[in-house]
């Protein structure tokens, strides 16, 4: 049961400003960290491998710094790692990401492709479906429990009121939810192993991708403007004249949270 786990690097968006180990203020949005949701995918892949045998390969589309995320995956126990990197990939949207990953995955041997549920930056939860379509595979997204059999896979897909049991043959694409498992720590041995494991690096030409279709060149969306969240200050205060509850409900509806 060979597995490819797709991982991502995301900007560190800790809302609190804190000092890092070098006693420097962590600057929001500039440092990259491995996507926290991917840990669950890596762990699930390792569990399947431990039960069924096979090889786990971590795949990351990123600049050179993506190697850190790949090394962390290796330190957790993943055997192989591939980085797809190319300056022309900067500014890629979800569509391009799905396409590039699919082209890379086609060059690997796999029975399952695993994803985390979403990433903590803007594009939420689209890439797994996109990759499934490009590869023409069944998708098991929002998976809360995964069972792998011979040539087939069964998952519990989370729904609003519970879950659906979904079954398909392999190969298949699976995206797992946070909390499906308890990700293991990278072990000390794993960290040392990560140093010795060679990371395969592919450029766009290695995977047959036309640069004009990806990155800012191929972007199908563009940002028009952005504004930071306003700092918190006191809002309106009303006196209750028997109608406060209604006013609160209206306010929450207006804020689109109710």
């Amino acid at each position, binding site marked *: 049961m060979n597995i490819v786990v797709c991982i991502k690097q995301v900007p560190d*968006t800790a*809302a*609190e400003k804190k000092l890092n180990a070098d006693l420097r203020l962590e600057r*929001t949005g500039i440092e990259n960290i491995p996507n926290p949701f991917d840990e669950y995918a890596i762990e699930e892949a390792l569990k399947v491998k431990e039960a069924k045998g096979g090889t786990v390969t971590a795949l990351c589309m990123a600049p050179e710094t993506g190697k850190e995320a790949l090394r962390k995956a290796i330190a957790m126990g993943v055997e192989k790692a591939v980085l797809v990197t190319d300056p022309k990939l900067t500014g890629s*949207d*979800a*569509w391009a990401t*799905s396409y590039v990953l699919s082209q890379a995955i086609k060059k690997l041997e796999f029975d399952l492709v695993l994803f985390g549920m979403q990433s903590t*930056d*803007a594009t*939420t*939860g*689209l890439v797994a*479906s*996109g990759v*499934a*379509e490009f590869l023409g*595979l*069944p*998708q*098991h*997204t929002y998976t809360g429990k995964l069972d792998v059999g011979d040539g087939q896979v*069964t998952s*519990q897909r989370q729904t609003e009121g*519970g879950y*659906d*049991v979904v*079954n*398909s043959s392999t190969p*298949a694409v699976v995206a797992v939810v946070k909390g499906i498992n308890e990700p293991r720590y990278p072990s000390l041995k794993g960290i040392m192993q990560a140093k010795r494991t060679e990371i395969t690096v592919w450029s766009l030409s290695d995977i047959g991708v036309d640069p004009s279709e990806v990155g800012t060149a191929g972007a*199908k*969306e*563009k*940002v*028009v*403007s*952005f504004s*930071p*969240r306003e700092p*918190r*200050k*006191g*809002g*309106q*205060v*009303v*006196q*209750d004249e*028997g109608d*406060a*509850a*209604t*006013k*609160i409900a209206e*306010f929450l*509806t207006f*804020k*689109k*949270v*109710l």
Partner: protein
Amino acid sequence: MSEIWAFIEQDKGEPKKISLEMATLAKRLADQSGATAAAVIMGPGAKAAAEKLGGYGIAKAYAKDDSKYGDYVITPQAHLLANLIREKKPSLVLVGSTTTGRDIASRAAAKLKLGILANVVDVGMDGGKVRVVAPAFGGNIEVTSQLVNQETEIVTVRPNAVMPAKTTAQIQVEEIAGDVGAESLLAKITERMSQETGAVPLEEAQFIIAGGRGLGGEDAFKMLFDLASALGGAVGASRAAVDAGWISYPHQVGQTGKTVKPVVYIACGISGAIQHKVGMQTSDVIVAINKNADAPIFQFADFGVVGDLFQVVPKLTDEVKKIRK
């Protein structure tokens, strides 16, 4: 005449609330741009659901009342939608950003090689083109984006972006002529299970109702648990309430308790001194109810009520239950 579509999720002929929001949005944007609002519905019960959309201003519906679109996960719907888009060329497709909606939209977009704007909180028209607003970087930034060079634009929209608005229209339901082949029937649903969701842990709750000294006693917290239940959230407390023994320590929010970041934090009878503030000040929306107009919490709450929480909270629970129905 261009069309603006709302993709409708339905269960046994009953459209889901978010789909009614999509319909309302489609109608609004269609009116603004002189287009026709239409709905796309699949699966068993599709035709029945389609009829109901007339009540939301939708003039036309494309329906496929076939069990395979309910029995198989995502792919058949995505492929049928993609085929329909290719045939009818709508200018915009609105999909509610549910787990199903996102998957279908993404898969269909990939099939058509179209870009997609996801998880937006606001959709508007700007010179005939769609412009959307979405949060990014953990909610710290709001980004306004547009799609580039797309004949059909696909957008997934978050819940509660619009209030469903009822307006009557004569709806014309058209059966979708095409169908998907066996190659789209990839993953089958073999069982549907419903589950009792247990109590939401405080750190993960989207809604937190917290009580402080103003509650006066243990019994008063029942009121908060009722409101939390109606909202699907959790109950928190200030240190004063925990020290007084009215509620246990795991509920404590603040400097020496938990730090939380829910979507909505409703502080009842809590003064808002720094020891508490530190634990909840990054909540998206803060509502405060306190009988003391000078309470520090009013200086940073987004909405404050000076009043008797014993009056306001039960009434708020009723309001929430009404809206949530």
